[in-house]
């Protein structure tokens, strides 16, 4: 680990990616994440074999990543909501072709051009698909600058391990805020990619990376293979954090930066003798279903707070399956919920 430094969330993503061995960055400027391409354009040209390429569009950026990682390199792209929409075609191809890559979405307000304020309304798009066809992304949601760094680093390992795209989602204000952060060491050992990466045919038979499987039976078999991998991920890669849930009767579920607002709400509720706690999903997919189910018995109700009209709440309702009430409170359009309004909304149900 490095010394603690004060950094913006976006810069922490960039620095951590470089330490994870990411040598190639392809991206297109968009607020509120432009610090990432700016940082990469300063640092990557100084690294042997490193390159920063400003793509003509996000469509191109994701396809450049597809090419670079197919050649065996660690590569990434980052964007914000409208740009992520443009990447969906490429993400679907990459998922099907089973090539690793890391994508960061510093989310802003939508739909449409929306605004540059933070929102969490891309949950459906990134967790449920977004691009066409049967595929999944691993989706990680940090709640601090330290976690921006740590999850970026881990995202590369997860992507390589399962040969699939991994997406980090952070609200715009998390990308912009400064906090102290420690970085992991520069990664020097990587998984062996010689079995599939395109390196020329000097030492092996021709290899092919593709996502076209014309015969329906073959396509079905391939999708089943993808889903076996996804089942393994659901077993091994679920991440969540709990805060004061042991004796909690009110289980607040929130991810990302507003889980920190929820923390202060829980403290205030506890001051009043109300036993509340937080379950914070860190991996949005795989979703912490079992952790939520394990709280059903003790819970009086679940309270989901999101910066959207209610997207993750659907997954919570699936997990709870009607066993206990699941209430929702959300602000959207780039409005960040205040502790006071969150507190008042929880109390409505007491």
């Amino acid at each position, binding site marked *: 680990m490095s010394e603690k430094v004060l950094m913006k969330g976006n810069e922490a993503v960039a620095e951590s990616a470089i330490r994870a061995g990411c*040598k*190639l960055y*392809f991206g297109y400027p968009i607020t509120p994440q432009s610090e990432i391409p700016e940082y990469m354009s300063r640092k990557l040209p100084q690294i042997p074999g490193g*390159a920063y*390429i400003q*793509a*003509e*569009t996000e*469509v*191109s*950026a994701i*396809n*450049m*990543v*597809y*090419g*670079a*990682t*197919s*050649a*065996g*390199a660690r*590569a990434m792209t980052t964007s914000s909501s409208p740009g992520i929409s443009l990447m969906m*075609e*490429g993400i679907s*191809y990459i998922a099907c*072709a089973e090539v690793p890559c890391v994508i960061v979405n510093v989310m802003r307000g939508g739909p449409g051009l929306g605004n540059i304020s933070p929102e969490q309304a891309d949950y459906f798009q990134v967790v449920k698909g977004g691009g066409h066809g049967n595929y999944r992304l691993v989706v990680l949601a940090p709640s601090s600058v330290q976690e921006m760094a740590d999850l970026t680093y881990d995202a590369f390992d997860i992507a390589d391990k399962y040969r699939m795209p991994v997406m980090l989602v952070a609200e715009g204000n998390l990308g912009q805020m400064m906090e102290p952060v420690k970085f992991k060491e520069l990664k020097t050992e990587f998984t062996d990619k010689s079995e599939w990466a*395109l*390196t*020329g*045919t*000097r030492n092996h038979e*021709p*290899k*092919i*990376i*593709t*996502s*076209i499987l014309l015969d329906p039976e073959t396509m079905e078999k391939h999708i089943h293979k993808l889903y076996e991998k996804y089942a393994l991920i659901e077993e091994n890669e679920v991440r969540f954090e709990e805060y004061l849930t042991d004796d909690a009767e009110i289980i607040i579920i929130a991810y990302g930066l507003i889980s920190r607002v929820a923390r202060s709400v829980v403290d205030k509720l506890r001051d009043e003798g109300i036993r509340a706690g937080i379950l914070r999903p860190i991996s949005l997919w795989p979703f912490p279903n079992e952790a939520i189910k394990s709280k059903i018995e003790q819970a009086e109700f679940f309270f989901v707070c999101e910066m959207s009209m209610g997207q993750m709440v659907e997954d919570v309702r699936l997990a709870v399956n009607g066993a206990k009430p699941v209430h929702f409170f959300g602000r959207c359009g780039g409005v960040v919920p205040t502790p006071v309004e969150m507190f008042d909304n929880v109390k409505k149900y007491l």
Partner: protein
Amino acid sequence: MEKIFKKPKGLNDKTMHYCPGCGHGIVHKMIAQTLEELDLLERTIFISPVGCAVFAYWYFNTDHIQAAHGRAPAVATGLKRANPELIIVSYQGDGDLASAGTAEIVHAAARGENISVIFINNAVYGMTGGQMAPTTLVGQKTSTSPFGRDPNFAGHPLKVCEMLATTKAPRYIERTSLDSVANLNKTKKAIKKSFDLQARGEGFSLVEILSPCPTNWGMSPPEAMDWIAETLSKEYPLGVFRDERADTEVRNDS
């Protein structure tokens, strides 16, 4: 000349799926043969497009990646930047390159990416059944221009070589054709020049090849060759549009 039709090492023994008289198979053979002649086969990554050539990897003895519609130049950029030792062949049709992927090709050219683009212009969308392409001639009948392309609402053909030659970075741009023995030879030479330039790190090159699609033109293979000579190459003049090294000096203004 007879060498063009010998099976090169770069191709396997599979029978190609292209229609009789199609240009794709001819160009595949030239590419394979050229890679062999330049001893580049083992370093080559062939990128297949969306279009009739989507399954080009069935035939080539090289590594291979399949790209989304029009995105091959972006995929090529990623591959080449990750490993400059690789020889990248971006093989694209006119729907793929001149419509779906105009942004990708223009900017790969403008950046001067050190890749070779082989651009098959058959003036229609072959794979999807002969619809109008951006390269379809004025008056040409296709399945979506049943009365002939009307420039009043469908505009005029897009000329890729001419357009790309307005940017400074490309090293070499030429348009050739498959309609005669002389033009086959010129095409082969152009492909060789493009690969050779890439191997020497000289930068972006594109060879546009006027290529027959007898099936969707509703012609016999010989009629199709005549149509290229008499009609298509009038709209798309053959020749070299650029053969020059770009100025690479960086002038900082501060």
